[in-house]
Structures are given as C-alpha cells and as structure tokens.
C-alpha cells in the first residue's frame, strides 16, 4: 500500500533550463492532480487527469508548463525555460475516481530556480 511518490524531492536549476518532475500515483487511482505551492501560500491548481479523458489544463500559468500521464499511471510535469518565479513546491495528488474527493498527496518536489 504505497502512497503517492514524487521525484526528485529537491531540484535546483538555472534560469532558462527545462525541468521534469515525476509523480507516481497510488495504484488503481484514476484521477491525478498537480498543484503548485509557493512559500507560505495555499495550493494552486495546475492540471487534472481523469482516466482517458482530455486533461483539464485550466490552471497552467503559461505555455512553458505542460504535463502528461502515460498509461493512466505515472505523470510528468515539465517546465520549459524556467524562471525564478517558478520556484515553489510542486505537489501531486491522486484519487480513486473522478471528482475532487479525498485527494492523497505526495511529499512534493521543491524546485529552486537560480
């Protein structure tokens, strides 16, 4: 019964570089969410995947951000040409079925852009 895992736990990158963040949801969970949490702030919704449906990308802050989910399981969040304002903790959550109910969160990836 492993929970949601994310890698890396910490990532330091130079401004302008691309980064990839990985999320492994709980096995069998069909829904997957990405959030961003800036220092001392709440969670900002980024993107939502549910089964084979088209993802809800309405929270992505710019076209530098993209995400995919392969085989309905692992997801990768990619940030291209990183900027200092992208520095934050990126959290992934999964749920058993559609809807926002009782999301299980991973530990997050702390991204620092220098």
């Amino acid at each position, binding site marked *: 019964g492993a929970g949601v895992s994310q890698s890396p736990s910490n990532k330091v990158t130079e401004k302008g570089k691309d980064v990839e963040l990985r999320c492994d949801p709980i096995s069998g969970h069909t829904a997957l969410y990405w959030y961003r949490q800036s220092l001392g702030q709440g969670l900002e*919704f980024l993107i939502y995947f549910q089964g084979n449906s088209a993802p809800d990308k309405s929270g992505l802050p710019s076209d530098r951000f993209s995400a995919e989910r392969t085989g309905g399981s692992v997801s990768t969040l990619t940030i291209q040409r990183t900027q200092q304002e992208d520095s934050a903790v990126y959290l992934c959550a999964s749920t058993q079925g559609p809807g926002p109910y009782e999301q299980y969160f991973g530990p997050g990836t702390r991204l620092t852009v220098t």
Partner: protein
Amino acid sequence: GESVGLHLPTLSVQEGDNSIINCAYSNSASDYFIWYKQESGKGPQFIIDIRSNMDKRQGQRVTVLLNKTVKHLSLQIAATQPGDSAVYFCAESHGNKLVFGAGTILRVKS
C-alpha cells in the same frame, strides 16, 4: 481564516485545550469540503471531509462544521496535542477540482 501574502493567520493554543480553525469559502455551489493538515516539508494529509447535505461531521478528536448560510467552515480539534502543530488548509470543490484556502498555522504550547 484566509491569509494576505505571507502572513498566515496563526492560532496558538495550550496543550489539552480545544482548537477551532475557521475558513470562509466562496462558491455557494460547492458540494464538498475538506480539511488538510500539512507539516513542514510534507505533503498535505487528509483530516476530514463533509458534503453540503450535512452541517456537522465528527472524526477522531476532530469535528467539521459547515454553515452554508454564511459560507463558513470550521475545524474543531479536541484536546490539542503538540503533534497537531501544523498548517491547516480548508478546500472547497469547484467541479472536479479543489480550491484551497491559504491556510492557518496552529501552534500548540506545552
């Protein structure tokens, strides 16, 4: 309550006392509400949830109260312990998504 910038509201309570954390929500159409606890360096952890057809739900040492008339949600923690120290977030449903408040810091004094 909600925060402004980096200044999260802070609730300090004595160990053993009861804590009440409040949250105002915005969407009168929300049908689901949830409280999370987040300790430093960790992801949010589910505490308790409630659907809009209820006004109270109890768990182990926690109670959530929902007042739809004034769009207010509260989390009550009984006999607060040092391990309860964390940031607490409320969230409301917007379709398939959760919209989170900025959080309240709970500090437990021994």
